[in-house]
């Protein structure tokens, strides 16, 4: 009984060593935090798809979303240093809205695999009303967690 117990002990120990050195689970890499925005209809309050949308960041050459059809949400980066980020929402050649997000920024270390990224806290949203009816702040914290931050209600 004693010898078999010791054999069981030693055998299971080596199995344990293998199990505990199998390596870590892979982490999802995150390069920056994004503001998640969902689109809704002002009339029905139901999710809505825009016929086409192009989004650019003001004062940059970056096209964040390019002529995407049937789009019902957007994932947009915010400026790391400045406390305001301005976007142009272009629905057609003639129809454009401007959205200005005012936010605070601070760096936050996530993990060894990801290092640190910039978190944002949305304080205010200003917008033109060519197609936009209103914008609601649902969750002001913009982090690596992909939670809904803003809801845009279209006319």
């Amino acid at each position, binding site marked *: 009984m004693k010898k078999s117990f010791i054999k069981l*002990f030693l055998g299971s120990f080596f199995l344990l*060593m293998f199990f505990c*050195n199998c390596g*870590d689970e892979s982490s999802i890499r995150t390069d920056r935090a994004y503001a998640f925005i969902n689109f809704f209809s002002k009339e029905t309050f139901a999710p809505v798809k825009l016929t086409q949308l192009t989004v650019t960041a003001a004062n940059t050459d970056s096209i964040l979303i390019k002529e995407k059809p049937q789009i019902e949400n957007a994932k947009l*980066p915010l400026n790391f240093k400045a406390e305001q980020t301005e976007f142009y929402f272009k629905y057609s050649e003639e129809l454009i809205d401007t959205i200005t997000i005012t936010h605070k920024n601070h760096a936050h*270390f996530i993990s060894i695999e990801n290092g640190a990224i910039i978190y944002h806290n949305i304080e205010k949203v200003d917008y033109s009303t060519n197609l936009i009816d209103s914008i609601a702040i649902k969750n002001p914290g913009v982090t690596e967690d992909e939670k809904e931050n803003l809801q845009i209600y279209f006319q």
Partner: protein
Amino acid sequence: MLSTSIFAQSSKKIIRKREVPKTPLYQGTTIGLDLFGGINSIFGSSFMSTEVNATVNLDYKWYPVVEVGYGTTNTTSDDNGSTYKTAAPYFRVGVNYSLTKKSRKDSHLFAGVRYGFSAFSYDVTSPDIEDGIWKDKIPYAHQGIKSNAHWLELLLGVKAKVYKNFQMGWTIRYKSPLSIQEDKFAKPWYIPGFGKNKSSNFYATYSIIYKLPF
């Protein structure tokens, strides 16, 4: 008359109260030294820990236990150059229950539960955070960020007597956090005694154990 009396006596059931010797509740104390943390770091783990434990044997059934350890890491990411450094003690208290039926031996299989706690500080650095859209760079480094963590552990283990008062034992543990304090500028990546900051961890211990002579 005499024969009737003998017959009456032999037909009676003789009931004697069987006396069960009373065994004391306290059956000894063992102290153990965990070697798994050190062995694991030799095999490439980024973390190093060692701990001692004291276990009281109550009637070979219940085993209250206290564990005190020290965990440390000083890690640099090969991918992005981030660094994380911490070193702190941790504490656990709990109880084991023998799963070996009617055994009064020192070798047995057991299950257990632990409450763990650690208060620690850590240093983190990260390469400059680059904004590819607005072309900015933000430096990042913080030292001495304070944190604490509380967690629960469920475990299975084996203990075997090897020679006289010496035993060997291992446990495999499932750890679940109760609370982990985060800072505005960082989330702790490694927590002494718990491991990586995740929703759960599996870990093991391997101990050399000595039964005290009292």
